[in-house]
C-alpha cells in the first residue's frame, strides 16, 4: 500500500514537472518565433529606409548637378536656370581623366555624386552629327559613371530638361540630364 502510494506520488511529481517543462518550452517557442518575426519586419523596415535613401540621394545629386558652377551657363555672373554650358561639361569630364587632377577630382566629386551615373542626351535638334549613334539612338554624354558593384539596386532614373548652350556658336539645344543613383541592396 505504502509502495503504491509512493509510486503514485512519484508519477504525479513527474507529470507536474513535465507540465512545467512543457509550459517553458511552449513559451520559448513563442518567444523564438516572435523574435524571428520581429527580425524580419526590422529587415523590411531597413530595406524600405534604404530605398527611400536611394531616392533622396538621387534628388540630392540632381540638385547638386543642376547648380554646379562647373556646368551651368552664366553671363557676367548671372546664372541661367536649367542650362548646361557644353564647353564646361567637356572640360569637367576631361578633369576626371586628367593626369594632374584625375585622382583628386574623383575623390572629391564622389562625395557629391556617389554611386551614380550622370549624363545628358540631346533631344533637339535631333539627329545632329555626334548626337546620334549608328543605330539612331541618342549619344550619352557621360560626365560621371561610378556603378562599381553589381549587387546594387538603383533609383528610378531622374530626368531634368536642360538647355545645352554652345557659347562659341551661341546655339542652344534642348537636352535631358539623366541621374541614376545606385545603392547596395540588403540580402
Amino acid at each position, binding site marked *: 500500500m505504502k509502495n503504491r502510494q509512493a509510486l503514485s506520488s512519484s508519477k504525479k511529481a513527474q507529470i507536474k514537472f513535465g507540465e512545467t517543462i512543457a509550459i517553458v518550452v511552449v513559451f520559448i517557442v513563442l518567444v523564438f518565433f516572435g523574435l524571428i518575426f520581429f527580425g524580419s519586419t526590422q529587415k523590411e523596415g531597413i530595406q*524600405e529606409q534604404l530605398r527611400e535613401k536611394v*531616392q533622396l540621394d538621387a534628388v540630392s545629386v540632381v540638385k547638386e548637378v543642376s547648380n554646379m558652377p562647373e556646368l551651368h551657363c552664366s553671363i557676367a555672373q548671372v546664372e541661367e536656370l536649367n542650362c548646361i554650358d557644353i564647353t564646361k561639361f567637356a572640360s569637367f569630364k576631361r578633369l576626371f581623366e586628367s593626369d594632374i587632377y584625375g585622382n583628386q577630382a574623383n575623390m572629391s566629386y564622389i562625395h557629391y555624386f556617389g554611386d551614380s551615373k550622370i549624363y545628358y542626351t540631346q533631344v*533637339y535638334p535631333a539627329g545632329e552629327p555626334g548626337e546620334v549613334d549608328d543605330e539612331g539612338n541618342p549619344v550619352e554624354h557621360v560626365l560621371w559613371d561610378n556603378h562599381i558593384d553589381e549587387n546594387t539596386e538603383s533609383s528610378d532614373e531622374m530626368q531634368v530638361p536642360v538647355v545645352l548652350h554652345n557659347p562659341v556658336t551661341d546655339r542652344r539645344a534642348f537636352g535631358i540630364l539623366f541621374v541614376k543613383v545606385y545603392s547596395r541592396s540588403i540580402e
Partner: protein
Amino acid sequence: MKRSQAEIMGLAIIVLLISVGFIFYVAFTVTKTPSRVAEVYKYDQMGENMVNALLEITVPDCEDYSIEQLISDCAMQERIRCPASSCDELRDVIETIFEGTLNHWYVSYYFTIKKDDNDIMTPINAGDYNEERSCDPENDETERPGWLPVSVFPYGDVIVRLDICRK
C-alpha cells in the same frame, strides 16, 4: 474549476494575446505606403523645368531664332519665315521635343500658348498620341504647372503653360 484547466486557460489567453498583437503589427506594417520621394520631385519640377528650357532654345533651321522669339512673332505679325511660318515651325519644334521626352516617358500633359486667353497655337495634348494619356487640367488632378509669360510689347503677354496630369 480544476487547477490544470485553469493553467490551460492561462496558456490559451497568452496565445490569444500574442496572436492579436501579431495581427495588429502585420496590419500596421502592410498598410504603410512605400516612399515616392524621387517620383514626386520629378513630376513636381517637370512642368517648370520643361517650359524654362523650351523657351531658351534656338532653331537652327530658322536662322537660330529662339523659341521665345518665334512665339512673339507667331502672336503678332508672323513675319519670320523659316521658310515655314513662325507658328508652324514653333509647333514642329515643340512636337519634336515632346516626342523625345514627355511622350517617350508616357507623361500625361496639356500644353498651351495663349494670348489674352486665346490660343495662338493649337494646344498639344498627350491624348493626341495616346488616348490613355489624355490630360484635362480643368478636371484631372495635376502637378504644379510650368508656365512663363513672353512679353509681346505693346500687345501684352503671351502665356506658355504646361500642365502635367497625375495618371
